[in-house]
């Protein structure tokens, strides 16, 4: 799972930022697939699959690489309705990275579409490096489909795509002295609101700040690494219905997300000892302003006489305030049973995890009928504490290796399974409609049943 999270981060960087930080072996061919199956029950499903092919060639002081990847992700949530968020993208990318004596240049063009470039200045040994990067793209991030409950002919099925126009800027630096290494990276992403010519669409206006710091010390046979990551996302998501060129907003979600994460890792040829701590918070605020309702279904109705008259006789709006925060600690150890020169390198590992989190959601449903307004307030307070383990198995088989020619062919497989030992989820729901209040609470409900991750890859180095 930890492997998955790291790979996901890397892929996200490719998709969203294309900071040229891919560790692509010079002159190599790699291919593989991975999948995460986190939840699969009748009302929720989370699954993600990814396959990729990367080919790179080193020519003089440049590496040219091309990749093709297929992403398939699906989140389904059934309630009184069915919401599916899917991502199904085929992305072809090409990149060039050139190292000169005092300057390095890198450019990536991807079919999402995305283009980015990075330039860095450094000394001849690359002990000190400082660079800047810039990127721009219009990736389609996800497709959303919301279907009302069966047999409801009034509300239409709503299909919308979230396509964003993203501008990314970053500055990065690195210093190596004696056996120490310090690295920093600061990125800013800003998305421009974008209105496609569609009947329904999602639009976002997002500002993201990512700060990354790395500190490493190289011992004789091992390396100690500490990393800090700070992410701050200030995002506003809008869902728009468009009739005859006129837009009406029916969904508004101002989301603030903050993440602090620290990784400490010590590794040698056989052992990878690590610990991750993360603290996150996710907040949706309701300013109570008109047209800032979380959901206003009347504005999403198909243009009709019924829709027009609904404003006079029956209007419904929903306002959501939410705060989710939590902490995750994941200490773990991975052990490669044989040395890196062996043909067969089995790997076994174990991460423990502890997480606690709080979810506090208030949903206010307002129904306006002619001269009256009915307000129903529902509060969902969930507290989660869980600990367990993530067991991992891996196997790398070097099919062919020629150190003298620097050529190799290897195949690698990894799998992880979440095994929760204890999940303590306390749910408290309050409902307040007019004069009556209903309270429901339950404990020890199952939050996550289990999760499974696997990947398989082939690498040819030449």
């Amino acid at each position, binding site marked *: 799972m930890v492997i998955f999270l790291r790979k996901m981060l890397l892929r996200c960087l490719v998709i969203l930022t294309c900071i040229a930080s891919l560790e692509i072996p010079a002159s190599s061919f790699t291919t593989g697939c991975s999948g995460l199956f986190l939840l699969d029950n009748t009302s929720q499903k989370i699954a993600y699959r990814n396959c990729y092919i990367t080919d790179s060639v080193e020519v003089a002081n440049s590496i040219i690489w091309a990749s093709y990847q297929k992403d398939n992700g699906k989140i389904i949530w059934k309630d009184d309705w069915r919401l599916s968020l899917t991502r199904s993208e085929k992305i072809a990318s090409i990149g060039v990275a050139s190292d000169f004596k005092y300057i390095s240049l890198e450019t990536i063009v991807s079919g999402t579409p995305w283009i980015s470039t990075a330039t860095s200045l450094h000394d001849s040994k690359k002990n000190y490096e400082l660079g800047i990067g810039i990127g721009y793209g219009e990736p389609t991030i996800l497709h959303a489909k919301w279907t009302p409950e069966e047999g409801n002919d009034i509300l239409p099925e709503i299909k919308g795509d979230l396509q964003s126009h993203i501008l990314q800027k970053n500055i990065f630096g690195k210093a190596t002295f004696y056996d120490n290494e310090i690295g920093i990276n600061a990125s800013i992403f800003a998305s421009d609101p974008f209105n496609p010519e569609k009947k329904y669409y999602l639009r976002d206006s997002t500002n993201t700040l990512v700060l990354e710091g790395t500190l490493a010390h190289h011992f004789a046979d091992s390396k100690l690494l500490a990393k800090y990551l700070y992410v701050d996302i200030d995002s506003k998501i809008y869902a728009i219905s468009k009739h*005859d060129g006129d837009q*009406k907003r029916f969904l508004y979600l101002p989301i603030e997300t903050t993440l602090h994460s620290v990784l400490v890792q010590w590794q040698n040829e056989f052992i990878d000892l690590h610990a991750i701590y993360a603290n996150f918070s996710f907040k949706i605020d309701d300013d109570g302003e*008109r047209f800032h309702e979380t959901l206003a279904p009347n504005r999403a109705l198909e243009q009709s*006489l019924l829709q027009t008259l609904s*404003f*006079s006789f029956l209007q419904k709006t929903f306002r959501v305030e939410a705060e989710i925060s939590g902490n995750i600690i994941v200490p773990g150890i991975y052990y490669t049973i044989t040395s890196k020169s062996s043909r067969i390198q089995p790997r076994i590992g174990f991460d423990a995890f502890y997480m606690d989190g709080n979810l506090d959601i208030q949903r206010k449903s307002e129904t*306006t009928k002619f001269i*009256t307004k*009915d307000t129903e307030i529902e509060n969902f307070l969930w507290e989660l504490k869980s600990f367990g383990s993530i067991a991992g198995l891996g196997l790398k088989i070097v099919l062919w290796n020629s150190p003298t020619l620097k050529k190799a062919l290897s195949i690698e497989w990894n799998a992880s399974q979440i095994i929760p030992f204890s999940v303590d989820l306390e749910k408290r729901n309050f409902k307040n409609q007019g004069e009556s209040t209903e309270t429901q609470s339950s404990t020890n409900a*199952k939050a996550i049943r289990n999760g499974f991750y696997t990947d398989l890859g082939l690498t040819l180095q030449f």
Partner: protein
Amino acid sequence: MNILKKITLASCGLAFCLNGCGSDSSSSSSESEASVPETPEFKIEACKETTDIKASQQLELAKQDIQELYKALYNRNLDKAQSVSAAVKNEFKNVLTAFPDNCEAQLGYGLATATDIINNELFKKLIDDLDSESGYSIFEMDPEDAANVMLKASVSAKQENQKVITAQIQEAFASAIPSIDSAIIYLRNVVSNEDFTVLLDVDGKTFELDKGEFAPATGALFIAKSIATAVASLNIDASLNKSYAWIDTLQNSELEFKDNPALKHVISLLESDSPFSTVYSDWKSSYKNIPNLLDSAISYVQLGLQYGIKEAASGIATQKHDPYVVGSGEEADVSVQNFQTAIDSLESLKNALHGNIKFDIDEKHSVVVNLGNFFNITDGFQDYLPYHKMVDPEDWLKPSSDDKWIEEFSFSAYAAFQIEKEFKRQLPTNLNKENLDVYFTDYFYNDDGYVDGYFIEFSYYGDAGYKNQTYGIETNGCSVKFKLVDVYSYTYGGSWVYDDELDDYVYADEESKQDTIQITGKEFSIDSDLCRVQDGKTVFATAKCSPIANIFNLTDKSGKVTVSYRDLATGHVYEDDDYHYHESYTTKELRDLIVFPDITFGGVFPEMTSEKFWDLVDVFSNHEYKEW
């Protein structure tokens, strides 16, 4: 569901679907008819906004109370609504007496008058009667449950001199009309003041109501009057001897069809000389005026929409406190274009009330409609049913001439009806029929596992527990005997048990040993037209698919049978070695089988032809298919 019940329901459903409920000669329409109320006429002063402080204070209180009233109505709290309504009406009345030209008082009094229908004596009595019938508040029920209560109440024995339920409903609706009329007079007066707005404090937020709301509300009152007039005008009295007890008899599946007086009554309702679905003579002019009421309703809604467009022209600043904002861009609820389209659609609808209007169904199909002509049909809808002949109930279950006689008994045999009926007769008479369900089954499980064959089974929900008994159907020639093959029973009061597979708690009853319910076990013979012994073999008349009671035959204009109801419901049947396949008739075939005496339905669809009609049926059925 058992076959007999299905057939009974099908026949009832069909009878109602064909609009065939009416009274027989013994029911008197004049007794059921509500008297036509007089339309109130009074003059009121042109409304103005008053600046009197005392009046304003009184009005503020009344405005809060009227919101409470509407809230109680929307929350279906009738008791509260009734008590608040009377008070609110008085509060507005007091201001109106002191300031007859006060706009807010006129508006409030008009609305309160309309809602105070809930305090109308006839309505109150009707609701009280229905509440006591069900033990619950009918006002809080969903429409389906409320309809069931009404049906139950209509069947229940009524008090001496009490009118049948349909007559009570019609009287209540008729008595509501003058209140709606009065409310309309006040609301129209308010709407005529272009600049009048009223501010309301709704949950701490200011709401500004203006002509954009008052005009559609006036339209809604015209629609309410149309509905009340239609309900009161049509003869919906389907009672038999001033009672609806026949509905219970209709559902009595132990009776032979031929012996069931209720079925005869239903058939009589379908006859073209039945008064059912006609318009009472005193109500004819009111009924024929409904298109004009609808016209007014539409005009007022259009007026409200037009006002919205006018407001939008001066931007959204003036609409800051309006319930909805008309304008372009995301900071508005609805666009001017939408409002204009709605006005145009309403105009077409309005024109269809007085003349012919063409509505496009899709790119190729359209239909010309004259809704006004619908309200000219006052002599009942029976004349527009397809040409048909009702079959004598005695012959409903007789096999058709092309049905096969098969050696083995199966549930497709017409004898199944008789077997089920006989089985019910053999059950103890003290069982509560409402808790009993009898049905056929072709398998059951016992300790040895799965057993297949032909069985009849009943489930009974007694006071202490639930019981299920399965009987084998043993035939000897055309004689039949029931043999008990399986029994199981549970007592109520089990416990909640966690089911791992469902990840939820399920309620598990406890198995118990109760006494077996005894049936008489008497052997009986199947009628000779359903079962015969020929050449030493017993043969059963067997339907092509499942046995269906043939309630009526469809005919052409000359009276020649085109298709039986049984064949129509069965469709085409194809057989191979193991299976029967059946396919519904195509619309092309139905065109020749179902013949309407007047396909224009009294001029409602003036340009309709048989070809166009069946094309449209095709379009709609395909449309539905695509949606699924």
